[in-house]
């Protein structure tokens, strides 16, 4: 699933990559950057925690617009207060769409990559970020001149509380939670591998939750496959070989087909006697009929024994 979202076969408007202390999300993020640079017409990278070079290694730089939030986010230096410079400042509320609109090139199929939502979430409440992300997705080519096809954001699970995570999860169409990972040194360089859990919501409403294993090659291409969950011991109890009771007997308990046929034709005591019914009787509902076949010994006396009573 992770690979399909990365390559674009599974459409997803907001992808959130949640990492943790044990597992750094930067390699996966880097893969997303390079893949989106190949797939989309332009990529806007908002980086606040790492310098831009970390993610742009091996990617097509001409398509990437960098919005710098790393060097001076709080605008301490005079020269950075110029509004025309492409800098993100944390002093005012996040407005991703505003930054996008300021770039000269107007295209559709824009991808937005946000290095981390953490600096925004630390300064503003969760709903401000949710609204800003929603505004990004609502941008239309006619009115705003730009249309965003995918947003990829990083999120540090250890730094925020559950309610913020829940609010973002409510908005995200794909949530990748990285669990364990490590470097895997190979001949060409260092690759990465790890476990993750992907929760993907399709537009049709179907929800897919999968545990996956991914590998990243030194050339920043990601392959993932679904990890077979260890089957619960309940289901793993092997189907006991059905003990065949008719085997290993000194007498024969099996039936041949003709015998089965004959068995199905046996008239059981309480069955509906089709043959005994008179042909001109109206077809009454079978639920209420009483069919009485008197035996030979039955003495059907018409007299009412109560007539003898004399008070």
């Amino acid at each position, binding site marked *: 699933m992770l690979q399909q979202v990365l390559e674009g076969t599974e459409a997803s408007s907001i992808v959130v990559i949640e990492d943790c202390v044990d597992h750094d999300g930067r390699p996966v993020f880097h893969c997303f950057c390079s893949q989106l640079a190949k797939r989309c017409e332009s990529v806007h990278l908002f980086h606040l925690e790492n310098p831009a070079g970390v993610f742009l290694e091996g990617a097509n730089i001409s398509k990437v617009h960098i919005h710098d939030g790393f060097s001076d986010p709080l605008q301490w230096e005079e020269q950075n207060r110029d509004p025309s410079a492409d800098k993100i400042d944390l002093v005012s509320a996040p407005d991703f769409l505003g930054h996008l609109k300021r770039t000269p090139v107007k295209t559709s199929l824009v991808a937005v990559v946000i290095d981390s939502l953490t600096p925004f979430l630390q300064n503003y409440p969760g*709903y401000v970020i*949710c*609204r800003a992300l929603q505004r990004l997705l609502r941008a239309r080519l006619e009115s705003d001149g730009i249309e965003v096809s995918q947003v990829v954001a990083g999120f540090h699970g250890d730094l925020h509380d559950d309610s913020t995570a829940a609010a973002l999860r409510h908005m995200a169409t794909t949530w990748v939670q990285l669990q364990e990972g490590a470097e895997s040194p190979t001949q060409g360089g260092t690759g990465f591998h790890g476990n993750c859990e992907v929760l993907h919501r399709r537009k049709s409403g179907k929800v897919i939750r999968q545990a996956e294993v991914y590998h990243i090659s030194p050339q920043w291409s990601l392959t993932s496959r679904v990890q077979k969950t260890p089957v619960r011991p309940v289901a793993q*109890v092997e189907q006991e070989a059905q003990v065949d009771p008719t085997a290993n007997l000194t007498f024969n308990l099996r039936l041949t087909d003709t015998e089965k046929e004959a068995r199905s034709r046996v008239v059981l005591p309480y069955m509906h006697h089709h043959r005994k019914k008179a042909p001109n009787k109206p077809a009454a509902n079978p639920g209420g009929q009483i069919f009485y076949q008197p035996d030979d010994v039955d003495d059907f006396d018409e007299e009412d024994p109560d007539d003898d009573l004399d008070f």
Partner: protein
Amino acid sequence: MAASTGKGGVTSFQKKSRTKTLQIPGTRPSSQGNQLLVSTGVPSLDHIIGGGIVVGTVLLVEEDSFGNYARLLMKYFMAEGIMTRHPLLLSSAELHPKQLLRDLPAPVSDDIGKAALHQEDVSSEKNVEKEATMKIAWRYQNLRTEQPELGAFSKFGHYYDLSKTMSSEMIDTAPSRLFYLPDELPLEEQGMWNSIRNPAYVKLLQSIQDVVREGQFDLTVPQPKDVSRTVLRIGLHSLGSPLWGEQDGGTSHDTSLPHFLHALRAVLRTSLTACLITIPTHLFQDMAFTRRLEKLCDSVIRLESFAGSEKEQNPAYKDYHGLLYIKQLSQANSLLSYMPDCNDFAFKLRRKKFAVEKLHLPPELQDSQQREQDDPVAALKTPSTGCFSTSGKSKLDF
């Protein structure tokens, strides 16, 4: 006298009352008290909440984790409003209300319910024929194999086909007012409601009041006799989500949403309106906040869907898509609310229909386990306070 409790609480009994009940198309008087009921669009849901939504009250639907089924209920509510020619007011912060309205399920046929009943009978007859003729239990041959749908015999709600969408001409026949929050931004502080801190709710409340006043739904304002009155349907989709400005999942002690609900109910009580609100309460960390919202609404149901959770694999639940819990039922103008006869309901979404049914656990599954601890069906039964624990491996178990 005692309220009509007991099995199959929907009756066609109509009290001969002296007071003139308003005759409004699409509503019917409830068997409890002198109230009007409005259908939610799903007849099986109507049946379990006591016949429908009481006019003047709020039905709160606590959303499932991904909000799909709550959105579906909202669509049914709006579709029912169009079929009965009730004006609509729809508000949403995430999807544009127009998108919601464009995707309503189409009604099955012009004839309310009769065609659907007929369809059901025909299909059940076919099922019976296909079955092998019973030899020993032949007296049960002609009984229906499917359980009759809850509330299937009422002529109050309409039946809808989910695979088709309602035509746009039909949607345009009902006057609707849409409130889309991102279009109303930026929000200024409204002077009138100082107690509600969140300007989004203030703006929504203002627009609801405007619609009620303009559309003459207000019961306190006397209307001339010849004006035909109708009921306004208000649908507030996904209220209380982060996009409405709710932060910290209710722990921030922001009382805007409870205040809004209180003011909303004040508006509704004196007007001919019925309201369906869906709130994603799974996002709220504070249980007390959720309980407060529940107490401020009249009827509350909670949806829990199996999608994406481990209950999806549980074989006992394989026929259903989720569970439905009734948390509260309205007791407007009466001492006792409607009491459903059982509390385990599940819903399933078939290709054409959304239905609510009683949850039947299978007595035993094919692959039942040797030990009762591992049996998924036994685990679902309420844990008995017996002398030994059915779950957990204790050394004393044998």
